[in-house]
């Protein structure tokens, strides 16, 4: 068992092409100009004692422990704040220095608890530094003024501050704090929240959250950066306090969002003690959010189902069975259904939460085993328009940049995304760049946090009416073309000039003018003009967009409109620019890459291509169907009409995540064998006949691909509690269906992917172990992957300009439904919430609330916190109101993290014209005061209770 330990170089790496050479303790070392003496020393293998510096934040020079002597200079400068210079001769360990350091440490220790539990556990630098500098005894004793004792001889100590245990995941013990300000700097620089301050001066000074509040009540977002930075036991993970220090660790990847942060999972036996963001992780560079760092407790939650279960009818209680019986049952049922109703009467759904290898196996099971193409994935409901739109215009179905690219952006346009909640670590990196002076444009109906947050303010916020993205983007293009702000040289070289002219003519049409678009979108024409000019002329301009773009009836159109803008202004094909979808779930990108869509094989190759099918036919030994299969909504339609009867769903909860819950429920109810493979009895399982227990990311090996096309390793740190990793379950199911699958390890599945998919040709577990991660395409031409795409030319050849006419959605407001509902998410919860609801993260979001503008609320006699009924053409639900000016009058907003809310009972089945991605972001609704749950909610609640009954069988295994 090994322990992954990353070196702390003391100060951040300097970026410079110039280098300097100096000598430290007789060792010569060459470093980039701007490197601190401390870092140079560490690079030379010399550790200078330190307390108030680390390599993630700027040096502050307050502890005076890192002093050095420099030949020809007087005094003893702090090495963390002294830049290395050519020819410098530095000594780090003279007796004079050691004496000063001992003095410093002695003072610190006199105000540090003698019995500090963190020191004892080895989780406090104080004890280590005291040893390093050779401090043996503390002469002053701990009797004088200090922060340690609550009271002495019946008198309260005025300097003592109580522990703050308000945050569910970490504790703050002010008595151990040495006021080094590392936490304050981490909160500012790494996280960008500015929640911490140093209160008071000198001996009085203490760290405080917010306006001297408990952490939980302050603006703290619980990212944990301060805990990680704290050199003492003042800020510590509660899990470490409870379980003790970890014994071994492994590097793995967060299973929550599309940022795909790398973590060191620190373990004690099979128990996770803490997750520490991995500095070498290229997506997150040592930072993380509350979900990845702290919210892993669902993995051992009591609700997890660990035994397979079967039932004849969905009204029966569940019966626990052996794995063998479950596999046999599914195999028999699927064979019977195919015999009775035809080959295309069954299908599968892959998961964006599972690994690439697992996803690949599910689509293989459908294509090779079921012999049809009825496979789809929940990416259908989030980013399918990205795939379609970017493939059509650029030639690949993925974002163009890596996250590092944002460090070189001068203008950032965020469209329909809320990164501080949805993609927190990317948001922190973005905010860092904005604080350095990059300009921000936000297109979003809501005033998201980014529009105005500490030290960040958007240059333009375009609060467009939901559903008018395409119109506004066309208007931006109108301004760029009519004012001659396009990049002719780029377009002539990389695109087709005639196509550009055709497009230019289209965007110049009067209905695309800012004035005309102001009418439909509500965005002032002058704001549109200003934003267009800034985007086109502000230097490197990058677009980041989210589900607010894709989840519309014009989702694909809007993605293409974004691509048009980037091409017209030459903002593609180098660092700092590009078109970047912010993916929702951890492996949405990967599940799309792996051939989860019914019309394409892995690597986005259409199923009708003979040559591609031939590759798989040769390997799999079957003839593949050359016709596209059914998408999720089509499967449900086909089920209702009686021609689709069996579905294997891995790691998705379509009943909760797909639009129009009733359509999904009726469709599922019409099937004869629904197999749900998941961690929990999710909502979809209410309609299932077979439940196969799933495994968590901690229990398996594999890979996830994040929003930057980065393939990251997932490493097993504990045995699957249910017995099998998900890939093994699919394999055993395939074997029961008579397929000859014999993968011994996920690396063998990746080998098959690489052998059959040109853009993955170079990927192997050896390469990933060596490089840490790679971004596809990774093949002969790019042996270590491709950080930025379309450099020098587009993947499809010439970039394609497409006319993207605005078509108003048919979901219109009227007298019955006068408001527009749009949906989103919050930081602490994830997607349908199945995992995060089973962690302490609920303290931040106990329930979904309906955000409504004070004006609309007052008109309806609604007060903050009141129960309201939310009704649309599709259905109605109840939840509590939150009155806020974040939403414009006429717009209401909610999240969908809790099943009881059933927000998707309200959303309609309108969808993107090209991909059927549902229009979650626009629903015409009415809001009225209410006093309790609707009939649907009550019926559903009863059904859930009934359908979750389990008859336990003794010794089922």
């Amino acid at each position, binding site marked *: 068992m090994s322990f992954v330990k990353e070196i702390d170089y003391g100060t951040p790496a300097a970026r410079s092409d110039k280098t300097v050479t100096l000598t430290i303790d007789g060792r010569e070392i060459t470093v980039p100009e701007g490197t601190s003496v401390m870092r140079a020393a560490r690079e030379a293998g010399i550790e200078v004692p330190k307390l108030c510096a680390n390599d993630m934040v700027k040096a502050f020079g307050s502890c005076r422990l890192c002093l050095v002597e420099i030949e020809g200079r007087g005094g003893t400068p702090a090495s963390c704040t002294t830049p290395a210079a050519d020819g410098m001769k530095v000594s780090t360990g003279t007796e004079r220095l050691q004496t000063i350091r001992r003095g410093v440490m002695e003072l610190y220790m006199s105000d540090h608890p003698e019995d500090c539990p963190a020191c004892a556990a080895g989780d406090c630098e104080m004890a280590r530094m005291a040893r390093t500098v050779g401090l043996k005894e503390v002469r002053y004793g701990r009797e004088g003024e200090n922060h340690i004792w609550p009271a002495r001889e019946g008198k309260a100590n005025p300097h003592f501050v109580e522990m703050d245990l308000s945050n569910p995941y970490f504790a703050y013990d002010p008595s151990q704090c040495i006021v080094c300000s590392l936490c304050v700097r981490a909160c500012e620089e790494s996280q960008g929240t500015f929640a911490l301050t140093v209160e008071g001066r000198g001996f009085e000074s203490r760290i405080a959250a917010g306006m001297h509040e408990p952490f939980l009540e302050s603006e703290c977002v619980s990212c944990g950066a301060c805990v990680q930075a704290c050199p003492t036991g003042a800020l510590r993970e509660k899990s470490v306090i409870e379980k003790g220090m970890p014994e071994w660790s492994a590097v793995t990847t967060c299973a929550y969002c599309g940022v795909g942060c790398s973590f060191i999972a620190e373990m004690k036996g099979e128990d996770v003690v803490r997750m520490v963001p991995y500095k070498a992780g290229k997506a997150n560079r040592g930072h993380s959010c509350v979900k990845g760092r702290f919210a892993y407790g669902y993995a051992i939650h009591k609700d997890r189902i660990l035994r397979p279960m079967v039932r004849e009818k969905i009204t029966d209680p569940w019966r626990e069975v052996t794995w063998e019986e479950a596999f046999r049952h599914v195999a028999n049922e699927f064979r019977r259904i195919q015999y009775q109703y035809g080959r*295309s009467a069954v299908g599968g759904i892959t998961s964006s939460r599972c690994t690439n290898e697992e996803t690949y196996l599910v689509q293989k099971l459908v294509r090779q085993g079921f012999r049809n*193409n*009825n496979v789809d994935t929940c990416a259908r409901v989030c980013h399918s328009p990205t795939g379609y739109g970017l493939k059509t215009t650029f030639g690949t179905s993925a974002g163009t940049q890596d996250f590092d690219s944002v460090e070189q952006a001068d203008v950032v346009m965020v469209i329909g995304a809320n990164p501080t909640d949805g993609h927190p670590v990317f948001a922190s990196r973005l905010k860092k760049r904005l604080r350095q002076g990059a300009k921000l444009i936000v297109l979003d109906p809501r005033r998201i946090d980014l529009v105005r947050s500490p030290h960040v303010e958007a240059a333009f916020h375009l609060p467009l009416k939901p559903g008018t993205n395409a119109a506004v983007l066309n208007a931006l293009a109108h301004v760029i073309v009519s004012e001659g702000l396009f990049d002719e040289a780029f377009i002539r070289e990389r695109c087709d000039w005639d196509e550009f002219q055709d497009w230019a003519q*289209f965007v110049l049409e009067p209905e695309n003018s800012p004035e005309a678009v102001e009418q439909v979108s509500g965005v002032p024409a002058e704001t549109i003009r200003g934003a267009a000019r800034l985007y086109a002329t502000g230097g490197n301009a990058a677009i980041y967009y989210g589900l607010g773009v894709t989840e519309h*009836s014009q989702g*694909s*159109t809007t993605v293409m409109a974004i691509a048009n803008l980037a091409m017209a202004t030459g903002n593609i094909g180098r660092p700092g620019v590009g078109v970047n979808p912010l993916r929702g779930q951890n492996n949405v990108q990967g599940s799309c890459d792996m051939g989860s869509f*019914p*019309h394409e094989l892995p690597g986005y190759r*259409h199923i*009708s291509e003979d040559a591609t099918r031939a590759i798989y036919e040769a390997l799999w030994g079957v003839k593949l*169907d050359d*016709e*596209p*299969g*059914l*998408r999720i909504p*089509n499967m449900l*339609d*086909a089920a*209702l*009409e009686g*021609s689709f009867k069996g579905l294997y769903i891995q790691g998705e909860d379509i009943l909760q995540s797909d639009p*129009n819950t*009733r*359509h999904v*429920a*009726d469709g599922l109810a019409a099937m004869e064998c629904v197999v749900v493979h998941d961690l929990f009895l999710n909502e979809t399982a209410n309609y299932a006949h077979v439940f196969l227990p799933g495994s968590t990311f901690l229990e398996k090996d594999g890979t996830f691909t994040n929003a930057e096309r980065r393939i990251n390793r997932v490493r097993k740190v504990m045995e699957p509690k249910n017995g099998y990793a998900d890939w093994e379950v699919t394999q055993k199911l395939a074997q029961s269906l008579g397929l000859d699958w014999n993968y011994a390890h996920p690396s063998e599945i990746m080998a098959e992917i690489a052998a059959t998919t040109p853009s993955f040709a170079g990927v192997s577990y050896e390469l990933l172990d060596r490089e840490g991660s790679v971004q596809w395409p990774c093949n002969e031409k790019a042996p270590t992957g491709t950080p930025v795409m379309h450099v020098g030319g587009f993947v499809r050849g010439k970039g394609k300009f497409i*006319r*993207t*006419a605005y*078509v108003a959605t048919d979901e219109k407001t009227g007298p019955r439904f006068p408001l527009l509902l749009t949906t989103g998410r919050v930081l602490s919860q994830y997607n349908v919430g199945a995992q995060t609801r089973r962690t302490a993260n609920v303290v931040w979001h106990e329930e979904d609330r309906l955000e409504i503008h004070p004006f609309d609320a007052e008109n309806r006699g609604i007060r903050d916190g009141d129960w309201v009924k939310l009704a649309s*053409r*599709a*259905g109605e639900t109840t939840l509590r109101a939150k009155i806020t000016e974040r939403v414009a009058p006429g717009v209401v907003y909610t999240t969908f993290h809790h099943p009881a809310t059933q927000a998707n009972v309200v959303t*309609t*089945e309108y969808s993107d*014209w*090209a*991909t*059927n991605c549902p229009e979650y972001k626009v629903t015409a609704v009415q809001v009225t005061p209410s006093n309790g749950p609707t009939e*649907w909610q009550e*019926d*559903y609640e009863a*059904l859930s209770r009934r359908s979750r009954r389990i008859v336990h069988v003794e010794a089922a295994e």
Partner: protein
Amino acid sequence: MSHEAGYKTGEEKLVYMANQIARFFEAMPHEEAVSGVADHINKFWEPRMRRHLFEIVARGGEGLRPLVLEAAQRVKRPREADA
């Protein structure tokens, strides 16, 4: 549960989807638009859905936009076994 269906069913939905596709391509020159719609349906519609489309067209194509009707002539007929 006895709730009336709050959604479109079967053919009604298919007509809606086909028209939606047409409305995107209508912005383009006619020839490109016709082949665009046909190509899109061929690439993404499962045989069952295409068969339904042909049935609707055969009955006179009620509700379908003219561009869909024109493009339908270039939509691939599903093989009998698939449909």
